[in-house]
């Protein structure tokens, strides 16, 4: 009989200790999580598929379904990849394997990671563990819901414009979008190549730091990766003396930010001051004015290119057609949902002859400005703090019919993604009994600073990651 493990509360670090001490075996732990999935995932739909018994001597992990797993179907939330079983592991999956982590399963995602609620998944939405009538955020809503509901001690997501940080915020988890180039994208189904990053989601900052240390570093299969300039340090300090925190002055006038979110955010700034941090004002005018339009040129343009390979020739379902062109057209028409189609059209237009300079080319120039603006701000501050999401979790269906409203969910996460900078989201309180996320942004390779600040604040905030309805 499997030992009783309270997966709802167990951190990855504690789980590792249990296995190391021999209190539970890796297989028993894996089974405990599968049992929890059996109990709670019917309601949540965090997983698209689970793995009954996986190799490995350590603790389990959940991987977002955009991450290729050898021998385990990987669909990126799309019908066009239904039945596609990779013949190779993504580098991050291989590194998890090498660390002994057992694969619990593949978690739900908006189709090709395009969305902020998982409602764009071809396999149906996931639900927020805090309130199943609400979305878990997206695109990595599956991983976030799984970690929040104790269906995995930790997991990996991918983040293009906020797909790790935003669902982490909406589900009360810690999530890290690493510095662009520190984690290999090899084997991760591409959405927008200059923006995609893979990162950890867990219950604590220390867990996130630990998982980051497992997946980060140069990969000879991804030319855009680099070696970390310094090793990952697990944070333990409780004070923030001397840490300079900048708050963009533009936050003040953003009407999209709910008052409850603002209140929780401001309480955490107070706590930061109490811990010894200096909180000041920084200026990111271009970021909030042009970040969003810039992102919605760059990301769809690259997506239109990355999604060109899904033609039904080599893998995935193939529709019938009298000619090659007809076969491809039908395959893509039947295989892609509305959001990828929308972005393919936008992106194709943005890259077209005669429009490139005005759209993609111009957006890349704006990006350079954002990079400069963030560098400037981070020369005066060690970290920049904002709320992660302007709102708490919203009801399923609320924004599904309004792409622009959905896009606005990423207002606060997008600018630093365009600048290639790391961002950590930690839960910083409740608003209407729902988690609020605090986003901490750092300079390139500033992950250790983010971990240190995030850990100290986490301790001071004392957020209980167990959804209210499951607390006894």
């Amino acid at each position, binding site marked *: 009989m499997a030992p009783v493990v309270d997966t709802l509360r167990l951190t990855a670090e504690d789980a590792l200790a249990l296995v190391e001490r021999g209190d539970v075996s890796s297989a028993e732990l894996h089974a405990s999580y599968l049992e929890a999935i059996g109990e709670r995932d019917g309601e949540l739909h965090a997983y698209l598929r689970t793995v009954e018994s996986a190799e490995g001597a350590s603790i389990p992990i959940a991987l977002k379904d955009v991450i290729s797993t050898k021998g385990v179907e990987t669909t990126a939330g799309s019908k066009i990849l239904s039945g596609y079983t990779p013949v*190779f592991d993504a580098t991050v999956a291989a590194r998890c394997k090498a660390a002994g982590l057992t694969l619990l399963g593949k978690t739900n995602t908006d189709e090709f990671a395009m969305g902020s609620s998982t409602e764009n998944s071809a396999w149906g939405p996931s639900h927020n563990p805090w309130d199943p009538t609400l979305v878990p955020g997206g695109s990595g809503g599956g991983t976030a819901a799984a970690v929040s509901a104790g269906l995995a001690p930790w997991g990996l997501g991918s983040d293009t414009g906020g797909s790790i940080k935003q669902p982490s915020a909406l589900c009360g988890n810690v999530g890290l979008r690493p510095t662009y180039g520190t984690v290999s*994208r090899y084997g991760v*189904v591409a959405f927008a190549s*200059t923006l995609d990053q893979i990162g950890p989601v867990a219950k604590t900052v220390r867990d996130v730091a630990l998982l980051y240390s497992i997946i980060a570093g140069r990969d000879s299969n991804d030319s855009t990766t680099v070696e970390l300039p310094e090793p990952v340090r697990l944070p333990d300090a409780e004070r923030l003396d001397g840490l300079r925190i900048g708050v963009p002055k533009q936050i003040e006038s953003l009407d999209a930010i709910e008052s409850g979110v603002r209140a929780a955010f401001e309480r955490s700034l107070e706590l930061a001051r109490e811990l010894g941090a200096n909180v000041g004002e920084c200026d990111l005018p271009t970021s909030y004015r042009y970040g969003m339009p810039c992102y919605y040129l760059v990301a769809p343009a690259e997506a239109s*290119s990355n999604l060109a*390979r899904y033609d039904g020739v*080599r893998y995935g379902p193939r529709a019938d057609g009298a000619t090659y062109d007809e076969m491809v057209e039908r395959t893509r028409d039947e295989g892609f949902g509305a959001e990828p189609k929308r972005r393919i059209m936008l992106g194709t237009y943005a*890259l*077209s002859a005669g429009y490139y300079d005005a759209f993609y080319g111009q957006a890349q120039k704006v990006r350079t400005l954002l990079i400069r603006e963030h560098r400037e701000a981070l020369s005066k501050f060690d970290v920049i703090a904002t709320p992660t999401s302007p709102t708490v979790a919203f009801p399923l269906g609320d924004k599904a019919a309004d792409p622009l409203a959905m896009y606005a969910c990423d207002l606060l996460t997008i600018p630093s993604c365009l600048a290639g900078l790391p961002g950590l989201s930690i839960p910083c309180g409740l608003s209407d009994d729902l988690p609020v996320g605090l986003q901490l942004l750092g300079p390139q390779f500033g992950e250790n600073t983010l971990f240190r600040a995030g850990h100290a604040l986490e301790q001071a905030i004392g957020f209980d990651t167990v959804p209210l309805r499951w607390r006894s």
Partner: protein
Amino acid sequence: MKWEPVIGLEIHVQLKTRTKMFCRCPVGFGAGENTQTCPVCLGFPGALPVMNRRAIEWTVLLGLALGCEIADHAMFSRKHYPYPDLPKGYQISQYDLPSCTNGNVVLPTADGDRVIGIVRAHLEEDAAKTVHIGGRTGRIGGADYSLIDFNRGGTPLVEIVTAPDIGSADEAKRVLQLLRQTIVELGISDAEMEKGALRVDANVSVRPSGSSELRTRTELKNMNSFNYIARGIEAEVERQIAVWESGGEVQQETYDFDAATGALSPRRSKEEADDYRYFPEPDLVPVEPPAVLVERLRSELPELPAARIRRIEARLDLDRATVLVTGGLDRLWEETVTVGADGVAAANVIANTVVGAGVEIGAVAPAELARLVEARELIPRATFDEAIAKLGDPGFKADPYLAQEAVSDAAELEPIVDAILEANPGQVEAYRGGKEGLLGFFVGQVMKETQGKANPRVVSELVRAKLGG
């Protein structure tokens, strides 16, 4: 009105690197279909390209050999078009920032050097190979089904674009021969057209002789030998001249050359212009070869064919020098001459007999060849040919062949010569009427009669004397 052709070439060269351009699959010809593939060159989800450094080096080397400027910052872009031979839906290719620009090919001619500009040489990946089964055209439209072999997909490919500086079909052929030899000698490609390792498209237009205008050009594709290229260009030049002279106007079109008929057939014109939606390949970093590498490669450049043609021409003549160098025969020639062979005789024997016998040039011992060249008229023709054919065998010695003597005794040969002349009164008449080229015919007949044992020089002297030469 007199017309002159204006020709530019686009030359694709497959590099013979050990592995493909962006993955570790072996590059090779003739392996079983789809056995040299991996997630990267099959365009699987999430697979990423990684540059082949050797291919970059070789592109720089080629650029240096062509006198190009070498970019210290080149970039790969994505070139999008939907076709089943392109697994990612785009080809990774250098676009606005190629590795090599602004060079030239120097073609030695009797009237001095012809300098043909090289606009650019850039690196890209080859597409897979498709075979369309059924249908009339052999193209994808109308085929019953198509098969794809991804082995070729991802092979490093250099595209060399010349300026429209080439003035005739023959010149185009000579430029290509020289370029091919340069590429082979750099060791970066076998450049074999029959295997598709060297592929040439020609852009052709014509203009009134002496003018500098550029008229509408057409593109010729599918010419897979140097002779076909020359024939295709010639046919297209004639066609265009006829169009202009009949008051018509040449349309911008692409033509396929049919080697069997020598005819050009226009491809169905597309409804809309291509839009490749280029943008910088985000999965790769810029190509920035360090200056020390470029300088090292420059210092390692061998003496190039054009220079060798000029050097050898001084000791021989331009035509023979060109044949020797572009055939990769000049080193053997030089060595053979160094050990004592006559230059012209050695050139003729090497370029005709040795090449004709299919001897592996690298295996020939120059000293033995030199002895054969010197003795070529003193031993029976058949013996000579037999010796040449075995020239490439390991440990070949000329001695046993040299022991056999040709019949040089005029008295012995005279009756045979008489008989031949008697049997061919028509030819004798023609020869006397001035067709001196028939000398070879008579000599050939005598050689045949003597089963190759006669000394051809003695025979021709006899023939000439008898016919009152």
